[in-house]
């Protein structure tokens, strides 16, 4: 049950909004292979956001119901329908996760945006091979998204650590910007990978942030971005490209330390929603 709304925005169900940000929580753990607890992420982010007042209008539609312990195929379908409804109302969808596998439903719902580019902040490429992974799994969700007809380029930012392969070369339309490169290069260079006139879906796995600032996530990897750096990079894209949807995933309050991770997630969203509003008015 939702206990608060994001940024204290009004809770509303059903009535049309238009020209606003619409929030949907997806308290899911079913695509999570590492650690349980991301299902508590949406409420934790909402609680942490209550001290923030971004310059934007929004409506919090609450959570998709009966997600936990539900049939994930049904959950994906309902998420897709919810995102579709938001887009039809002329609003911008912002999803609060939940495990990262849910992002597939949001991207799938945006099939009218063609070509759609994906900006994926994550410590991992989420491009695991099919064997040993079920169809619905946060470790290979980006591989599934890459297979959607309307998806063009994928820019993955924040990759780092120790892997079994050179994952940067797994897909010819994917550009991997390692965490180190993302820290050292000027923020504006991220725009080079995203054509000016093509819409972008932005997905943020909170594990892109260094675990010193965001320890509350299932698979933390040291050496990540600072919150400020991620905000800066995301803001540059939101200011200069049409971001048609956004999600914040993998916040796991059960693994958090004094709510630092949910606070970081809320701060990043507060940075981005005004830019999403402005671009939607263009």
């Amino acid at each position, binding site marked *: 049950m939702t206990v608060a709304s994001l940024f204290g925005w009004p809770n509303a169900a059903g009535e049309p909004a238009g020209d606003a940000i619409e929030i949907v929580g997806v308290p899911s753990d079913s695509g999570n292979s590492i650690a349980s607890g991301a299902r508590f992420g949406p409420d934790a982010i909402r609680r942490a956001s209550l001290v923030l007042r971004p310059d934007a209008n929004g409506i919090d539609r609450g959570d998709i119901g009966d997600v936990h312990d539900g049939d994930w195929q049904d959950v994906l379908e309902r998420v897709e329908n919810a995102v579709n409804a938001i887009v039809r109302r002329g609003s911008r969808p912002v999803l609060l996760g939940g495990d990262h596998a849910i992002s597939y439903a949001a991207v799938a719902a945006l099939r009218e945006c063609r070509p759609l580019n994906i900006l994926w902040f994550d410590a991992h490429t989420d491009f695991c091979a099919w064997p040993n992974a079920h169809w619905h799994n946060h470790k290979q969700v980006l591989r599934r998204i890459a297979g959607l007809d309307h998806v063009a380029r994928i820019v993955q930012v924040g*990759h*780092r*650590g*120790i*892997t*079994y*392969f*050179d*994952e*940067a070369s797994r897909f010819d339309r994917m550009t991997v910007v*390692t*965490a*180190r490169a993302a820290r050292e290069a000027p923020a504006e260079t991220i725009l080079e990978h995203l054509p000016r006139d093509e819409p972008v879906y932005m997905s943020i796995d909170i594990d892109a942030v*260094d*675990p*010193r600032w965001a*320890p509350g996530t299932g*698979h*933390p*990897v*040291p*050496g990540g971005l600072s919150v400020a750096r991620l905000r800066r990079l995301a803001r540059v894209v939101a200011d200069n490209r049409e971001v048609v949807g956004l999600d914040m995933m993998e916040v796991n309050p059960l693994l958090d*330390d004094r709510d630092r991770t949910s606070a970081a997630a809320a701060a990043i969203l507060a940075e981005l929603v005004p830019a999403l509003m402005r671009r939607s008015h263009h």
Partner: protein
Amino acid sequence: MAILEAFCDEAPASGGEYPAGDARHSGPQGDPAGADPLLTTRLMVSDDLALESQDDTHIVVINTASSARTKLSLSAYRLLKAFARPCRIDQVAPAQVAAQILPQVRMLVDKQMLVDADAPVPADTVRLRTAVAYKFCGAPAYAKSKIPDFVILGVPYDLAGETDSRLAPALIRRKSLDYSYQLDFGDGRPRGWFDVNRGVWMLRGATLADAGDVPVDYGENRACWVERVGTALAECCTGHSVPLILGGDRSVTGAALGGLRHPGKLTVVQITADPEHAADGAGRHLLRMDKVERVVSLGACLDRRPETVRAWGDALSIYLSIDPSIAGARWTAPPGPTLHELKVLIAAIGKVHRIVGIELVGLDMRSRSPELAAITGCHLALAAMSAAHDRF
């Protein structure tokens, strides 16, 4: 109840009652010459036994020293209990029955449930190494017949410092399972890992083996523990093998150095969040060891330029001691080095010098984020192993 029935599932065909009075006070019956020596041996239940479960027909007994489990019938269990105090078989059952229960008694002796009550008590011995639940990176267990490139040895000792580190080896091993040791399907050689930050393959073809933990027998003399660590390390780290020690507090360093088979002088490089503490404590102690030529303590303020390592000398033999709290899990003022900076520094050490031993020590389980420190420790350990093996 008939005595034989009490000890056997079925009474022999001849059956019959036997006078119970003979059981407790009589000596060996008949001429012992040529008789089974077990008949004249005073036996007693091993101190190491514990009951694991029981039902209407069986008992499962576990030997806590060997972890061996044995399923006993109720009659065998009753026979076992009859030796709660030291006694001979003929003191448990009359002579006629003793011969019949002898095979069952022998089985209990063979399984070390019954022991010779009059055998000399062995000196209190502690095993050199014990098995662990998880192996580092899921590497195979150490076997004497093979000499791996790296031997992992846990030393869960924390009685000499301020950190709560006795569970750190287990935590590091558990977190290391995210980076599992795999063999290439084609050639059967270790595949190694890809370091995303540096864009290089590491430890390709390098073999790992986990030798378990050196147990700590709390209350024993510290010198015994130090000797045991040294002996365990010397035993399992032979040939070209480089040890990776999972501590433990900082005192582990001295014990490990004692067992390191390296003919020349060593330079101990400590990468720690508290370099002053390291230098004053374990550092000075280490300098008293014959084989230690120099101790370099690097902390949050370390000179992170790779060329720094050249200033120490040329082609030194380095024992690398890393406190995994230094990066990723601790807020230091001024800010500590990043994980990437540490990896670059470690790679430079491996390129200029020869890394002959690696350890992770000082991980405090009471710290804010021991799991993150353990993950960082895994990264740094693999980076150090790569620096020792790949030398780029």
